[in-house]
């Protein structure tokens, strides 16, 4: 049940987002659309996105320029819904309408990487006049028919594929690599370029096409309307606040001896709280070893599931549909007493360690050839950090409250070549604990300890996973910095965010 705490590496899932490709010659003419759907089709657009992907290996560099295309659709006045992964790291977005060759510039209004949705708007909304706003429907029935509309690979013009709802499940969203939400699996063909396109039932949107499965056939995934509606509600106040979490880990109470030891009746009820994240929404209200009985009045079974409208859902789905600041009622047993409490929801700390970052410039601090970065999913994968210490710190970051002492985990990711650093290579990838005896909290603090404080003759750095200190004579540090910045084309000694 740690699903909400840990990074889910969904290797098999690929965002259905086409990389930039030249249009094939001699594309077939578009088939005559059915009259009834003509206006609906007109509200589905092709998105062409130029991207600049940050480079976490050399964080001072501009990163890689690339691009791709996807789909978006009109859901309100100058409101075009698409996937976050279509517009992630974008530098320019161009929208092409059906039967038109004009490329209309657009801008992101809101983006939610945790549920892979984004809302964009045209810089000049005039061409959208007269187009219908696709209405957002409800949850479709299993085995009911859906159509996926979009601009996937294989041609330039609008594509429609048809299939049925194969499965409704709670699954990983590959874009952030950390989040799981409700999904709908369909057997309609969903291919690169379909991303951000609507899945339609009747004349209502029942989802947004967003990812597929590499090792299986006819498994397309769409984001269902509860997730879409949550996103649209969240941004009503002008900003996106992210998903909230209870911040607890639970364990099923199937075992008869366990039920007996916990003095629970022999029935299918209740889950054991095995961890409460410090400073999380439940901290101070729920304790380890409490037994959760119900959430917002819904009885929790011994596997941690609840029944809502006849559907079995995991208990976290109650929280899924709520927002920061909302409350949730919990009923639980502590020391044989049934109690109730109401907690106020908020997001969990530390998401960059678990969730991939987009639209962010990587931060770093350079000191005499040593490059420090905060540990994020991006920096970890760029520098291939997979040693036992790093994995232990990240996997226990929340449940052992490592975040309290280390809001950021600082890694010596690179050592640039210089006479000073020529024998320091073994430290690459080490986790920084202290600078001159003081524990480092985050990258900003690292910078301050190195640059804002008068350095002793030797700056002494100690590491979590190395048993000898790294020592830098501080006398000539400016000269060393200058030399290294010139050789490696590093513009500044640090980037610590806007």
């Amino acid at each position: 049940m740690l699903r909400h705490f840990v990074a889910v590496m969904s290797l098999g899932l690929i965002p259905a987002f086409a990389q930039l490709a030249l249009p094939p010659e001699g594309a077939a003419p578009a088939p005559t659309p059915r009259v009834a759907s003509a206006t609906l089709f007109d509200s589905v657009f092709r998105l062409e996105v130029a991207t600049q992907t940050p480079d976490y290996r050399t964080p001072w560099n501009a990163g890689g320029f690339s691009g791709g295309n996807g789909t978006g659709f009109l859901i309100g006045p100058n409101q075009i819904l698409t996937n976050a992964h279509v517009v992630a790291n974008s530098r320019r977005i161009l929208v092409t309408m059906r039967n038109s060759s004009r490329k209309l510039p657009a801008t992101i209004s809101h983006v939610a990487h945790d549920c892979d949705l984004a809302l964009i708007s045209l810089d000049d909304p005039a061409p959208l006049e007269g187009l219908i706003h696709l209405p957002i429907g409800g949850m479709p029935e299993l085995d009911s028919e859906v159509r996926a509309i979009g601009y996937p690979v294989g041609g330039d013009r609008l594509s429609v594929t048809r299939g049925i709802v194969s499965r409704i499940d709670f699954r990983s969203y590959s874009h952030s690599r950390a989040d799981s939400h409700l999904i709908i699996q369909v057997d309609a063909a969903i291919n690169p370029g379909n991303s951000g396109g609507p899945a339609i039932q009747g004349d209502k949107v029942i989802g947004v096409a967003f990812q597929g499965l590499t090792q299986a056939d006819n498994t397309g995934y769409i984001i269902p309307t509860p997730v879409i509606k949550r996103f649209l509600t969240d941004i009503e106040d002008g900003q996106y606040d992210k998903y909230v979490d209870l911040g607890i880990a639970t364990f099923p109470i199937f075992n008869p001896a366990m039920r007996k030891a916990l003095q629970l009746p022999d029935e299918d009820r209740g889950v054991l709280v095995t961890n409460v994240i410090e400073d999380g929404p439940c901290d101070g209200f729920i304790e380890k070893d409490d037994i959760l009985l119900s959430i917002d009045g819904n009885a929790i079974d011994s596997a941690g599931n609840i029944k809502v409208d006849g559907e079995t859902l995991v208990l976290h789905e109650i929280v899924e549909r709520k927002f920061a600041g909302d409350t949730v009622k919990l009923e639980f047993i502590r020391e044989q007493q049934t109690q109730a409490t109401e907690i106020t929801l908020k997001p969990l700390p530390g998401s960059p360690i678990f969730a991939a970052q987009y639209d962010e410039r990587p931060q770093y601090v350079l000191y005499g050839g040593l490059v420090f970065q905060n540990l994020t999913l991006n920096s970890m994968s760029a520098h291939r950090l997979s040693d036992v210490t790093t994995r232990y710190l990240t996997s226990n970051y929340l449940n052992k409250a490592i975040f309290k002492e280390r809001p950021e985990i600082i890694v010596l990711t690179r050592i640039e070549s210089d006479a000073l650093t020529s024998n320091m290579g073994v430290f690459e990838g080490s986790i920084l604990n202290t600078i001159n005896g003081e524990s480092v909290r985050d990258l900003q603090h690292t910078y301050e300890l190195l640059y804002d404080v008068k350095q002793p003759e030797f700056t002494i750095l100690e590491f979590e996973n190395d048993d000898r200190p790294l020592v830098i004579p501080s006398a000539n540090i400016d000269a060393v910095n200058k030399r290294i910045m010139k050789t490696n084309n590093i513009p500044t000694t640090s980037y610590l965010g806007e």
Partner: protein
Amino acid sequence: MKTNTFILLSTLVLATGLSADSPEEHARAISEKTVAPVTIGKSNQAATTSTLDSFVRVNATIQTFNAGQPWQRNGPQRRSGLGTLISASEILTTAEMVANQTYLELENADSTQRVQAQVIAIDYKANLALLSPIKEAPFLKRKTPLQLGTPARIGDLIDIWQFENNGTTLKTVATIRAVDTSSTFIPGYSFLIYTLKGSMQSASSSFTLPATRDGKLIGVLTSYDSEDQISEVIAPEIVSTFLKDARDGNYEGFPTLGCATRRTEDEAFREYLQLSPRGGGLYVSRVRPGSPAAKADLRVGDVLLAIDRSNLDRRGFFEHPSYGPLPWTVLIRSDKMVGDSVTLRVLREGQLMELPITLEAPQAPLVPTHINDSPPPFLIKGGFVFQELSRSYLRAYGDKWATRAPLSLMYAMDNPDKYEEDRDSIVFLSRVLPNPVTIGYDSLNGIIINQVNGKSVRNITELANFLKEAPENGIHTIELDDTPGTVYLDATLSDQVDQQLLQRGLPALSRLPAEEPLPQQAATNNE
């Protein structure tokens, strides 16, 4: 260097490029890689000895234990190599040859006569074993024991001995190209070796081979790389220390200092440590509590400048009078024995000092680096399988064991200091054999045990004893170091389940460590 170790290692200790799992596969792999039969050519003229008659075949049946199901052994494998008669009843071979053997025999060259043998002394880290026949054997009596040779020099010619299938003795002459240290069996423990250059033939019994010079035994060949025609031979210093120790009836093993060191090539670091720009020295990065180094007051942060009169350079090398530069560990782990003393010259905060140290046998570490010949202890209770953590257990996760083995166990192995208090070993729940008692717990594995019924668990014997006592309200409470925190076991039901497991073919519900270690086993340890 890519080395094809001749001996068929179990998958647990396979440290070579080969991934052979069965003797057949291994033989194939060797023959594919080996260059066609040798013409000894030029070096033939330099051959120094006529045929020696001091060698026997050593045949071993090897059965390792199954890490995941420690109550059973893996399938038997046959291993065959050569041993050298060094007295009327002593045969020297490698530890690798006989580790985890369940049957051992000596055989003459043409395979017509055999006698069962036993291990008298074995050192897994130095990779040497001393055998003796369990009864008199006429074919052994006809052989001439070999004397031990003196240390060789780089450039010397060495004879490597093999048996052909038809019983012919085969000799290959190779040249000592370098002297170095290497771990020939247990990873992480390097000992003095000779690196030989010479093309060898893939004959039968072409591993664990005697190496002689001028008709005297100087070492045992442990590996041969057919691509580079390089072989490694355990040096005579190691052989003679091993024999001296083994022959006094109480094998203690090679001594240790009990400290870890780091190189000091980093100029900034040298300046900080007040080391001269041209000198050497090793930074002491860890001192194991209770070790000889700790008793002699060696401290973290000291710089080790010399051992006895040998100066250490900044990489930790000293100048050996005949071999040239060698790693400093040779000064401790070569001709020194437990009880011998050395003097360390140390720089502490700019002050020179001399620390006399009496060397000791290595302490048993919290997580043993290797387990050979002693079956892994285990305890089954209600379908829960408990074991003691060892590196061998983690390595059984295969090639990518460092990432595939449970993270918390890997972390405990790397950070024993965080677990050492209150523990002699790390007891963990290795798996659950699904049964009605374990419903809801079936998927638990790789979780360290902290307490049982409120009592801290020092080792698996204690765990077994705690679980024998009747718990309050009939349910054992087992505290884990990880999710789900606590598991519960119904005492009565789990006993019933255990009886069913026995009926289903499990040979026993526990195997607890013997009070006294078997005499032939060297203690497992860390440097």
